[in-house]
């Protein structure tokens, strides 16, 4: 007969060994996050730029991008990302665009660009920057009100006063500057959110042993 206490000690020892092995295995793998795919889509002028990357920072090359009209569900256009994981398209129409990026075998992500953030085809509104997070405030809300401008791509600058043109150009410049400044931050932010932290891994192991404790407790009570 094996002494139950000895058996218990032996089991805890095995547990400890396995945990130690698991954790020490993790340490050299500094970048062991999930390979969940991420997308960063933003509006610039009359185009939408999409960038796909995995949570470990690798670019999602050759991934299928499909754009849908979010209201009707109709497929508007599609394509593949290039070697830099980038894809861009002209805004097909002013509506809520649902952009779906399918990296490979079930690694898929979606993002909706609200129609209100797209430049109006009629030319009553300047493009406001769309960002990944809906809750992010538009970057230049103070430009939105009052400013009437033609869509830039149509090139029709004639017929507007000089100051209007200046204003439009100034706004584009500011937007570009802001975008340059914050896009690494935004990317870093969403990468951060996707990272698998050691504390969470250890936490998961903790949950498993916690559940074991509860199961043993109830089994033990039943056996009494």
């Amino acid at each position, binding site marked *: *007969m094996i002494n139950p206490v000895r058996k218990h000690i032996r089991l805890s020892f095995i547990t400890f060994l*396995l945990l130690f092995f698991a954790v020490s295995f993790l340490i050299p*793998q500094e970048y062991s996050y999930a390979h969940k795919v991420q997308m960063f889509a933003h509006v610039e002028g009359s185009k939408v730029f999409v960038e796909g990357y995995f949570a470990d920072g690798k670019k999602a090359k050759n991934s299928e991008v499909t754009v849908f009209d979010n209201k009707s569900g109709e497929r508007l256009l599609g394509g593949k990302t290039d070697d830099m994981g980038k894809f861009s398209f002209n805004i097909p129409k002013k509506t809520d665009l649902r952009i779906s990026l399918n990296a490979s075998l079930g690694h898929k992500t979606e993002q909706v660009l609200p129609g209100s953030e797209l430049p109006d085809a009629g030319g009553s509104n300047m493009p406001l920057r769309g960002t990944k997070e809906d809750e992010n405030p538009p970057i230049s809300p103070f430009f939105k009100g009052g400013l009437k401008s033609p869509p830039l791509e149509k090139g029709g600058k004639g017929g507007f006063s000089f100051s209007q043109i200046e204003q439009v150009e100034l706004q584009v410049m500011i937007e570009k500057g802001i975008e340059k400044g914050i896009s690494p931050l935004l990317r870093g932010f969403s990468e951060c959110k996707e990272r698998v932290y050691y504390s969470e891994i250890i*936490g*998961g192991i903790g949950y498993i042993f916690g559940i074991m404790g509860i199961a043993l407790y109830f089994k033990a009570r039943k056996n009494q």
Partner: protein
Amino acid sequence: MHISEGILSAPVLTAGFVGTAALAAITLRKMDMEEIPKISVITAAFFVASLIHIPFGFTSIHLILNGLVGITLGIRAFPAIMLAIILQAILFGHGGVTVIGINSVMLGGGGLVAYFIWRLRHRFPSTPRRETIFGGIAAAVSVISSGLILALALVTTGEEFVATAGYALLAHVPVMVIEGIVVGVCAAFLAKVKPEILAGQVQKTPMGHHHAT
């Protein structure tokens, strides 16, 4: 090898949850108290294994190890894998909450297949290589069974996924080979050092003495 949210159709997802509930109900029956610590340890190992990514060529792979869970826990592999999948979905967003059902059937089902193959080893004479070979075959078949369940889920979702299903199966082939080798080595090692960890390796006599079979 998790499938993500937003790909499979609602009926397939529902079938996944129904299958998971049924399999969990069957595999959780008559569990002994002594089994629980071992199940927890293996669950933890499985939980961690799929978070470790090993650079492999142009991509990175991670071991699935549902075969190893199968040959150590027997039918209890299913609840173990299910628990790990639930935690991975909640903590890390692997897959997602709606696909917990189908992922459990996919990986847990593979684990059960591994166990059924592992059990067949008793029909063969005990040689030093027997555990390695059966562990390896069990793990390889377990991976490919999971791949088949994944492919089936994709095909039943829609015609447009037939090609994807093919790629998914193809992607499982290198994983199958690697897992077969890793689990084969593990099985041989455990059979030598700690045979009671392997399912059915050591049979208890009524007196509580152990003797190897």
